C-alpha cells in the first residue's frame, strides 16, 4: 500500500464557512453588541422565575397603574385551595396585638384577622415590601415580571414561526430551483399570489381564519412569512445547479433528494441564515402587532403587544406612561439587536466583503 500524497497546504489551512463568519462577525462591533443583547435576553427568558419573585398573572388589585419604583406593603394570607401560593393583601399599615393582626387597607378600611390565618410562621414570612421596579399595570401585575415572561412568548414566536417559514420556504424554493419547468412555474405562481398580500395583512388574515390563541399565532406568522425564503433558495439553487459538483452527483447516480439535501442546501445556507434573522425580527413585531389589535396570544399570557395594548388606554389620559413605553422599549431593543446581528451576519457571509 502506497502512502497517500500529502494534501496541498491551502486545504489544510482552509477555514470552514462557520469559522470564517465567526471571525469576521467578532470584528463587527454592531453585530457583537446585537449578539450579546440576544444572548442576554435568551438567558433572562429562560431563568424568568429565578429573576423575579412575582408571578406574571398574579393581580394585586389595590396596586393598579403604579409608577416605576413603587414599593408595596403586603400581607400574605394562607390560601386554602393552593397551599404554596398565598393570597396577597395590600395594606397601608398593620399592627400585631397578641394573636391578631389589625390592619387598614389602602382604601382606609380597618380589619382584624388572626395571625394563624397568615402564611408561614414569622413576620418575615407573611409581611413583604415588594419593589415594583417598572411599576404595575391596570390589574396590579408587576410590569418587569410580565416583560420577562413576555420575552418567552416573543422569542418562541420568533423561533417557531421562523422554523415553520423555513421549512415551507426551503422545500418550495428547492423544488422550484432544482426541477424548474412546470414545478417552478407552479411554485412561483404561489409565491406571487402570497407576495401580493402585505405580510402583516396575511398574518391578520390567517389569524382570523385560525382563531385566537398561542399556537394559532405561531402558525399564522409562519405560513405567511416563507415567500422571501423560497425566492432566495430558488435563486441560489439556480446558480448552484450549474456547478460541476452537482453534475458530478448526477454522474455518480445520486438521487434528487440526496443531491438537494447533502450537496445543494449546505451551499445555499449563507443567504438563508441572513434572511432568517430578519424573519425572526419580523415575527416578533408581527406577534406584538397581532396582540395589539386583540388577535394573537390571549390574556392572561404576558405578551409585549398585549402589554402595549393595555397601556395604550392610559396613554391619552396621561397616567403612568411606563405601561406603554417599557414594553415598546424592550421590543425595540430586541428587534434592533436582531437587525444589528443580521446586518453583521450578512457582511460576514458576503464573499464580496473585502475585509478579512
Amino acid at each position, binding site marked *: 500500500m502506497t502512502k497517500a500524497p500529502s494534501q496541498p497546504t491551502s486545504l489544510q489551512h482552509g477555514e470552514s464557512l462557520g469559522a470564517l463568519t465567526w471571525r469576521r462577525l467578532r470584528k463587527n462591533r454592531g453585530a457583537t453588541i446585537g449578539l450579546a443583547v440576544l444572548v442576554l435576553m435568551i438567558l433572562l427568558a429562560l431563568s424568568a422565575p429565578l429573576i423575579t419573585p412575582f408571578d406574571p398573572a398574579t393581580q394585586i388589585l389595590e396596586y393598579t397603574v403604579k409608577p416605576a419604583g413603587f414599593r408595596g406593603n403586603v400581607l400574605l394570607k394562607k390560601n386554602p385551595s393552593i397551599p404554596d401560593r398565598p393570597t396577597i393583601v395590600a395594606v397601608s399599615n398593620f399592627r400585631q396585638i397578641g394573636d391578631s393582626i389589625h390592619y387598614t387597607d389602602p382604601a382606609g378600611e380597618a380589619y382584624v384577622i388572626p395571625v394563624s390565618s397568615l402564611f408561614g410562621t414569622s413576620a418575615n414570612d407573611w409581611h413583604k415590601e415588594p419593589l415594583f421596579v417598572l411599576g404595575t399595570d391596570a390589574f396590579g401585575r408587576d410590569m418587569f415580571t410580565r416583560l420577562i415572561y413576555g420575552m418567552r412568548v416573543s422569542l418562541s414566536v420568533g423561533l417557531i414561526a421562523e422554523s415553520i417559514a423555513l421549512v415551507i420556504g426551503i422545500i418550495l424554493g428547492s423544488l422550484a430551483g432544482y426541477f424548474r419547468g412546470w414545478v417552478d412555474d407552479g411554485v412561483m*405562481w*404561489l409565491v*406571487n*399570489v*402570497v*407576495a*401580493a*398580500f*402585505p*405580510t*402583516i*395583512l396575511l398574518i*391578520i*388574515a390567517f389569524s*382570523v*381564519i*385560525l*382563531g385566537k390563541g398561542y399556537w394559532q399565532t405561531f402558525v399564522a406568522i409562519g405560513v405567511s412569512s416563507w415567500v422571501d425564503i423560497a425566492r432566495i433558495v430558488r435563486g441560489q439553487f439556480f446558480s448552484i445547479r450549474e456547478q460541476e459538483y452537482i453534475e458530478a452527483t448526477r454522474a455518480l447516480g445520486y438521487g434528487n433528494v440526496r443531491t438537494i439535501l447533502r450537496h445543494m442546501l449546505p451551499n445555499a445556507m449563507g443567504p438563508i441564515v441572513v434572511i432568517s434573522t430578519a424573519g425572526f*425580527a419580523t415575527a416578533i*413585531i408581527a406577534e*406584538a*402587532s397581532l396582540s*395589539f*389589535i*386583540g*388577535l394573537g396570544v390571549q390574556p392572561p399570557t404576558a405578551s409585549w403587544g398585549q402589554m*402595549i395594548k393595555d397601556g*395604550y388606554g392610559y*396613554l*391619552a389620559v*396621561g397616567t403612568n*406612561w411606563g405601561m*406603554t*413605553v417599557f414594553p*415598546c422599549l424592550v*421590543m*425595540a431593543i430586541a*428587534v*434592533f439587536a*436582531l*437587525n*444589528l446581528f443580521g*446586518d453583521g451576519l450578512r457582511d460576514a457571509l458576503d464573499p464580496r466583503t473585502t475585509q478579512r
Partner: protein
Amino acid sequence: MKFLLYVLGRIHYALWVLAGVVVVTFFIRPPGDPARVLLGQHADSVSVAAMREQLGLDRPLYEQLFLYGKNIVTDGDLGRSIVTRRPVTEIISERLPATVLLASASMAIAILGGIALGLVATIRPNSWIDTASMSTSLLGISLPSFVVGLLFILVFGVTLEWFPNSGYIDRGWQYLTLPLITLAIRPMSIIARVTRSSMLDVLGQDYVRTARAKGLSMPTVYVRHALRNALNPVVTTISAWFAGLLAGTYFIEFVFNWPGIGYASFTAITQLDYPVIQGTVLLTAVIFVVTNVVADIIYSILDPRIRLR
C-alpha cells in the same frame, strides 16, 4: 410588437395571480359558523338556518367560491358587511379618500427624506454622519409603526401638547402631522438604506471618477451622474412599498383614530365582520399586483433589455 407582447404577457400573468388572490381572500373567514356568531349563542336553529341561507353559507364551498369570484368580476360586488348589512364597496369607497391622503402624503415624505438621508450618508462613507444616519434608519426599521405612533402620542401629544392625538384632517392640518410622520418613518428608513448602498455601488464606477477628473463639482457629479443611475433600485423599493404602506395604515389609523380603510378593517376584525376584512385585504393585494405590472412596464420602456430577456 415585442413590447406589446411583453405587456400582454405581464397582464396575462397578473390575471392568474389575481385569480389566486381572490381564492385566498375567499377563505378569510373565522372558524365556526358566522351565522351563529352574528345571531348570538341563544338563537334558535331555525333563524340560524335562515341566516345561513341569507349569507349563502348553505351552499357547498366551491359554489360559494365561484359565486364570490363571479360577483367580483361581473359586478365588482364584494358582498355585504354582516354587521351593518351595508355593501362592502360602499364602506371602502367612503373610507378610501382618508387612507389615500395619508398614504400618499407619507410616501412623498418618505421618498424625499429617505433619498436625502441616503445621500448624506454616502458623502463620507463610514464617517460619523454615515453611522448616525444608518443607525437612525436601522432604528426606524426596528420599530413597528404602531410603537412609533404611541411614542409620538406620548411625546408630542400628551407631554408637549404640540399636536392632537387623534382625529381627522377635517378639523385642521395639525391632525395629519403625527400619523403622517409615523407612517413615513419605516419606508423612509428602507429607502435611505437602499439609496446608500446603491449610491456606493455607483460612486465606485469608472464614469464617476471620469466626471470628477474632468473637473465637475462634487454636487454636479452626485446629482447628475451618480444619483440618476442609482435610482433604479430605489424606484423598485418605492413601488414595492406602496401596498405595504396601505397595510401600515391599519395600525396607524387605529392608533390615531384616522377614519380610513385601516380603521374600518380594524373594527371589522374585532367584530369578525369577515366580508369587510376580505374586501380591504383584496383591495390591498389588487393595488400591489397592479402597481407591479405598471412598474414592470415602465422599466421595460426605460430599459429595453428587460423585455428582450
